[in-house]
C-alpha cells in the first residue's frame, strides 16, 4: 500500500562487506549462509528474519535471547545468548525466548532470610537431583546447581552472591528434569539478602531524615533564586572530591553539609 519504512538504517547486511567469508548455519534445521563475523542475533536478521521475540537489549543483559545449538558430529547441547555468541559453521540453532516458570508471590518484609522460607515458597526445590544440567545450560557461566543447593542449605547470602549475574533467560529452567524455576529462586535469595541480611546503610536513612526535616530548604532556595552569573561562578569554583580520596574525605567548605 505504498507504506514505506521510515528510512531503514543500519541494516546488518549493508554494513557487511559482500566479500566477507560466509559460513553455513542451520536455523531451526534450515540452512542459511551468513557472514562469519556475525553474532547469532545478527545472523538471524541477515537470513531475513525480523526479530520480535528473542531480542531485547542486544547487549547481553536482558536475557531475551537464550539460544541452544548443536553441531552435527556432537551429542552436546550448547547454549548462548544470541546477541553475544558469534556464529560457527554448521551450528544448528534454535531460540528459546520464553519458558514458563513458577513464580511465588510474597511480602518480602515479612519473610525470614532462611532456607525454610525458600522451601515454603518453592517446595519443588527439594526435587533437585543434582544432575548439574542447569549449570551446563547457563550462558552466564553461573554454577546454578550450586546456588540452588546453597539455597536449600539456607545459605541465602551465598546463593545471592552466586546468582548475582543471572540474566533470567530461563535456559536452566527449560532443561531441568526436576522442573525448578532456578532464576526465581535466585532473585528471591538476592532480595532476601538485600533486605534482611546485608547491613543497612545508615547514611541513607540519615539523608532521608535530613530531607524530611527540611534541613536543606534554605540552601536550595538560595541556589534557585541566584542569577545565572553567580550560579556559574559557584559551579566553576565548587570543591571537587579528589579521585583518590577515601570514603571519609570531608570538604573544606561545610556550609551546605549537614551532619547529625
Amino acid at each position: 500500500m505504498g507504506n514505506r519504512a521510515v528510512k531503514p538504517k543500519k541494516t546488518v547486511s549493508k554494513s557487511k562487506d559482500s566479500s566477507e567469508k560466509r559460513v553455513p548455519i542451520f536455523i531451526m534445521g534450515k540452512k542459511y549462509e551468513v557472514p562469519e563475523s556475525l553474532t547469532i542475533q545478527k545472523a538471524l536478521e541477515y537470513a531475513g528474519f525480523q526479530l520480535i521475540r528473542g531480542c531485547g537489549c542486544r547487549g547481553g543483559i536482558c536475557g531475551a535471547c537464550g539460544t541452544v545449538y548443536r553441531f552435527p558430529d556432537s551429542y552436546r547441547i550448547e547454549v548462548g545468548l544470541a546477541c553475544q555468541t558469534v556464529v560457527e559453521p554448521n551450528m544448528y540453532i534454535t531460540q528459546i525466548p520464553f519458558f514458563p516458570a513458577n513464580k511465588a508471590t510474597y511480602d518480602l518484609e515479612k519473610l525470614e532470610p532462611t532456607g525454610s522460607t525458600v522451601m515454603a515458597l518453592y517446595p519443588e526445590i527439594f526435587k533437585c537431583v543434582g544432575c548439574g544440567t542447569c549449570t551446563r545450560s547457563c550462558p552466564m557461566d553461573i554454577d546454578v546447581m550450586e546456588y540452588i543447593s546453597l539455597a536449600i542449605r539456607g545459605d541465602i547470602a551465598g546463593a545471592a552472591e552466586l546468582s548475582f549475574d543471572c540474566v533470567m533467560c530461563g535456559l536452566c529452567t527449560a532443561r531441568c528434569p526436576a522442573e525448578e524455576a532456578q532464576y526465581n529462586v535466585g532473585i528471591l535469595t538476592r532480595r532476601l539478602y538485600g533486605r534482611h541480611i546485608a547491613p543497612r546503610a545508615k547514611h541513607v536513612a540519615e539523608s532521608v531524615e535530613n530531607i524530611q526535616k527540611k534541613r536543606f530548604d534554605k540552601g536550595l532556595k538560595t541556589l534557585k533564586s541566584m542569577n545565572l552569573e553567580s550560579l556559574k561562578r559557584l559551579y566553576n569554583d565548587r570543591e571537587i572530591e579528589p579521585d583518590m580520596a577515601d570514603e571519609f574525605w570531608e570538604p573544606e567548605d561545610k556550609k551546605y553539609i549537614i551532619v547529625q
Partner: protein
Amino acid sequence: MPYTSELKKLIKIVEKTRPERVERKKRGEEFPAMSLSEREKILKYHPDFKEEGRSEIKVGPNKGYRIANEMVELLHAKSRVNPDLIHLSRIDYETDVLVIGGGGAGTAAALMAQKTGVKVLIATKLRHGDANTMMAEGGIQAATKNQKDSIYYHYLDALGGGHFRNDPDLVETLVTEAPKVMAWLENLGAMFTKFEDGRMKSLHGGGTSRKRMHYAGDITGAEIMRTIRDEARNYPNDIKVLEFSPAVELILNDQGACGGAVLYNLETEEYIVVKAKATVLATGGSGRLHIQEFMTTNHYGATGDGLIIAYRAGVPIKFLHTVQYHPTGAVFPEQAEGLLITEKFRGAGANVLNIDGEQFVYEREPRDVEAAAFIRECTVRGKGVPTPTGKFGVWLDSPMIDILNEKGTVRREFPGKWILFHRYGIDITQEPMLVYPTLHYQNGGLEINRKGETVVPGLIVGGEVSGGVHGENRLMGNSLLDVMVYGRIAGETAAAYARKQFKDGKLTLNHVKRYNKALQDSGIDLDGRVAPMILPDYSNPDVRKKQLTTDYTGTLR
C-alpha cells in the same frame, strides 16, 4: 576477535606511556579540566551542532523547533493505522491506570499506583523489563554521604551538567527525592555494593563534585529492574502485564482528557483498545533512530514512540535539540560495536589516549564535552586509532585500574565487561579498550511539571521520554534516578487522578485525524511514512526485495 597485529603494535605505545601516567595519577595530578569557555569552544565538534543534522518541525505544538532529522521524519509521518478503522466502543481492556512501557519508570509507577489500591495494566513493547533500564551499568546518583555531600551539591552538579538550562523545579524534586529512592530500593532488597558496615560504596561520574554514584556491581540497572519487576509480579491481581503490545496511539475523550491507548499485538497483529482513567507514558528513549548514523547503546525497542503519540495529542517537547552521545562506546571488536563501556572505568582511574598514547582530555568532563573531544581528536586532529572496519577510536586504558588500586580490581568491579571482552579474546586487565562516542540518551522529551503532569489531563509522563530534568545534557547516574523518582511520582499522580479527578467521556481519536490533516495541509512530502516506528528495521534488504507478496507498514510487516 582479538586485537589485530596492527592494533597490538599501537598498544605497545600505550604501554610505554603508562608508567608515567600512573605515577601522575597517584600524585593526584590530573589532565587539566576545561573551563566553561573552553567547553563552549569544543562543543562545536559535537554532533548536536551540525546544522545539516537538524530540520524544522512543521506541525504541532512545537512548530518551528529544529531537532534531529530522524525525529522530525517521525513527527512528519502519519498514524500507523487509519483512526476510522478503530472501534472505540469495543473496549478490550478497562483499567484504572494504564502504564505504557514496562521499563524502570513504568514499573515504578505501577508499584506506587498499586499501593494506593487502584488496578494497573502495564502495556509494553517487548518483554516486561526489556528496556534501557536493564542496561544501565554505572550507577545511580543520590546525595547520601552526609559528611561530604548534600542535595545542594547534587543540584549544582546537575544544573552545571545541563548547561544551566534544566527546569529548576524538576531538578529540585530530583535531588530531594533521591535519598528516598535509595531507601525504597534498599527496602525492596536491591543488592547495592556495600562496605561491611552497610555503607553503600559510591564513585564519581562525569561532572560530579562528590562521589555519589551508588552501584550494584556493574549491572546497577539490571539489579534495579529485576528487583522492581519481581515486586510487580508479587501482585498478579492488581498489576497485569501485556507484553509485545506496544501503544501506537493515545486515546482522548470528549472532555479533552486522556482516556487510554490503542495497542498493537505484535504477534497476532491485531489492534487493541484500552480504556483507562489515567495513563502513564513511560516508553523511554530513542537510540534506535540512529541519529546521524551513530551506533547506539540502547535496547531494541528504543524508537521514541511515546514522543510521537503524545506530541500528536498536543504535548509539547523540550530539549530535543540535544542528544547524548556516550563518549565511550566499543568500536572493537565489531560484534560489540556500540556497546557501552561504563564511565566508571574513567571514574576508577583509566586514562583516555590518542594513537600516540597521549592524553588529550581530562577523563571526567561532562559527557558532551568528553564526546566532542574524542570526535575532534579523531576527525580534526587525525590522532584516532584506526579499526579494521575503517572506523576510528581512542584508547581507554583499563589496565591502569589494576595498577592504581590492586590486582583484580577490574575483574571484581567490571565482571560483565571482563567476560564480554574475554569471549572475544581480549583481556581488559592487560589491554586497553578501543572506544568512540555512541548514541546513548535522549536528553529532552515531553514537557512535564514536578508531578509528571502534562498539558493533557490524565496523561502523566515519567522517565527518559520526558524532558527538562537534565536540561541540555544529563549526567551519568541522574537518569536511573530520574526514572525512579519520576516513575514513582507518575504512579502516585496517576492513581490520585484516577480516584479523584477522572471524568468519564466518549473516547475519540479526533486528535489523530487532526494531526494527519495538519500534515497533509503543511505540504510536507510524507512519502508514505508512518509512525511510531515500534521496531527498527534490521532485516536484510536483499531478502525484502524478494518478499514479493509482503506489505510493510513502516518497518513492520
